[in-house]
């Protein structure tokens, strides 16, 4: 509401009635109604977020009182004995999303650069359409494909190869089953790639053609010109990555079907793991007992916070990058 009186001052001598002035700085009733409606819509959004945090906190009070901060540190998750700890789920959520981004970001950038800068129109249109189509596939379909196609493929070809070449690393030790953290990360990567590449494509397309022409005119090669475009689009690209990260953190069905659903922290990418969203989806329906239910709701609260913190970190990174590269972009 604070923005309204400021504007109102400019027009204070034109309209007589006070309430009307507050509602309608321009003296147009339609504008006033529109303004109030839009404000309410925006307020509703904030209200929903606040209401969710309050509801989650209230319902997890029992678990918060019982375990305190130990809930975040404990690795025990044993509903039968009534011991609950969130650490393996937090680890699984963050690790699978990071693997997804590590794989997906280079691919997405490549796809977008090719579509915008290099591909002729008769290729870029259908390929762009296909990439967007991938984003519309329901996640349970990705999950089934993951169980029946991806997991056997990884088990038979990729994981044995990784184990034989990089087996000296703790990351690639353990029994090869095709189900585990790596598979979860890869399926997430496949799911977020269309989102990231579609947004990056739009960002690159929005970089003014004059930037490219200027770079080429100064004698830049095509690769150097693309670098200029990328630097110009950096904030948008970072935004695309954050969008993808958001999807990866919250994705449930597809990950559940291939990650192995075991609350443990293991360095090996071949070992089964568990994500917060999967745990809630898996256990909520049959959660008997108030403490169990409360612990699951607290997991939801933690997922909320993890998403918040990770997004916050990402935004700070973006801000840093854009501050540094803003000058370069302008110079080019």
């Amino acid at each position, binding site marked *: 509401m604070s923005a309204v009186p400021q504007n109102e001052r400019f027009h204070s001598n034109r309209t007589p009635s006070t309430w009307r002035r507050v509602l309608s700085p321009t003296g*147009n*009733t*339609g504008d006033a*109604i*529109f303004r109030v409606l839009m404000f309410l819509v925006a307020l509703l959004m904030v209200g929903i977020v606040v209401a969710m945090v309050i509801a989650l906190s209230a319902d997890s009070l029992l678990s918060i009182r019982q375990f305190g901060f130990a809930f975040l540190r404990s690795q*025990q*998750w*044993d*509903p*039968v*004995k009534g011991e609950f700890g969130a650490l393996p789920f937090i680890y699984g959520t963050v690790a699978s999303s990071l693997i997804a981004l590590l794989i997906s970001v280079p691919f997405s950038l490549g796809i977008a650069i090719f579509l915008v800068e290099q591909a002729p129109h008769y290729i870029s249109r259908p390929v762009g359409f296909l990439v967007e189509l991938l984003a519309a596939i329901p996640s349970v379909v990705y999950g*089934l494909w993951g*169980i*029946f196609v991806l*997991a*056997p493929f990884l*088990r038979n070809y990729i994981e044995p190869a990784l184990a034989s070449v990089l087996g000296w690393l703790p990351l690639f030790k353990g*029994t090869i*089953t*095709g*189900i585990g953290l790596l598979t979860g990360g890869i399926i997430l990567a496949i799911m977020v790639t269309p989102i990231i590449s579609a947004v990056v494509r739009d960002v690159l397309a929005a970089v003014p053609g004059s930037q490219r022409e200027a770079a080429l005119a100064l004698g830049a090669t095509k690769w150097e010109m693309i670098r200029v475009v990328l630097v110009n689009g950096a904030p948008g690209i970072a935004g695309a990555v954050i969008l993808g990260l958001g999807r990866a953190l919250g994705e449930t069905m597809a990950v*559940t*079907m291939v990650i*192995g*659903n*075991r*609350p443990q922290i293991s360095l090996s990418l071949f070992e*089964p793991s*568990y994500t917060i969203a*999967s745990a809630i*989806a*898996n*256990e*909520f*329906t*049959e*959660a*008997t007992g108030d403490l169990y*239910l409360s612990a699951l709701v607290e997991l939801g609260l933690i997922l909320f916070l993890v998403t918040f913190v990770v997004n916050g970190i990402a935004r700070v990174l973006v801000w840093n990058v854009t501050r540094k590269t803003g000058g370069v972009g302008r110079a080019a």
Partner: protein
Amino acid sequence: MSVPKKGFQLLASVCALVALVVSLACNPGGGAGGPGGTVSLHGAGATFPNPLYQKWLSEYEKLQPNIRIDYQSIGSGGGVKQLKEQTIDFGASDPPMKDEDLKSAPGEILHIPTVLGAVVVTYNLSGVNQTLKFSPDVVADIFLGKIKKWNDPRIAADNAGVTLPANDITVVHRSDGSGTSAVFTDYLSKVSAEWKEKVGSGTSPSWPVGLGGKGNEGVTGQVKATPNTIGYVELAYAIQNKLPVAHVKNAAGNFIEPSIDSVTAAAAASAANTPEDLRVSITNAAGAQVYPIASYTYVLVYKDQKDAAKGKAIVDFLWWAIHDGENYAKPLLYAPLPADIVRRAEVKINSVTSGGKPLRSS
């Protein structure tokens, strides 16, 4: 001035719409005594009997067009919770309710068994065509992670003449909270002291080893797609999907193939020592032809019904379900109740009252 006028009209119509929606949402519909004397009942709970319950509801509606019943398969835990909060008219659960849940409920709750289910051990072992046999302690130790190889001498001892590969066993269990897991771990707790102490029984136990699959289809998917795996699923699901199913040694020492008849036999064999309230675990039941990993599934109702019309509809439906309804069980691969238990369930249904008056005999 035409623009603001339109704006007001729009606003007015939006307000009218909102008011309409709010008034509809606040209207306490769905109660007894709707138009034409229709009674509507809401039930929720276990997912395992859902296909049968849906069949029952559609058949029963043909017989009693004035009674509308819907059933949401939200899981046993959710069914118990909603029944305690009295947001539904009847609940359903695979495991019987715990004592503390019964105590904290706002009224006395009756358990009416409807059908029986069983949990079977399935596996994927390439090169082995014979049906595998397991002793109870072997199953427990495989799921405890103590038996690690398929050619372990203890597995071989039960399967003379089968050439077992020297591969690692990969255990697959349910990752979602499930009555199937509750029955399976209840059985393992009865046959293995170590299981009982280390893991115990419940809908989501802390599994010592293995991968988690979501739902029967998730476990089946991982077992089918991964060689050298062992897992457990519902009997009906295993039969429908023609999975390899192990024979398990029962308390009498016989290896029994899981089937609808051997499951009903488990209930019949344990009928004599079933308590008055019918809350009972029938895993590891005594009897020569009994399959040992079986359980009841229950409908849960309050003994004293607040609304006589609704209460009458519930008891009539339940009466139909445990008599005529049982005929639909076998085609849908559920094991029907043995005659002894039907008689004892009748007593329970007859004991439901509303305002002190029995509903059934009226």
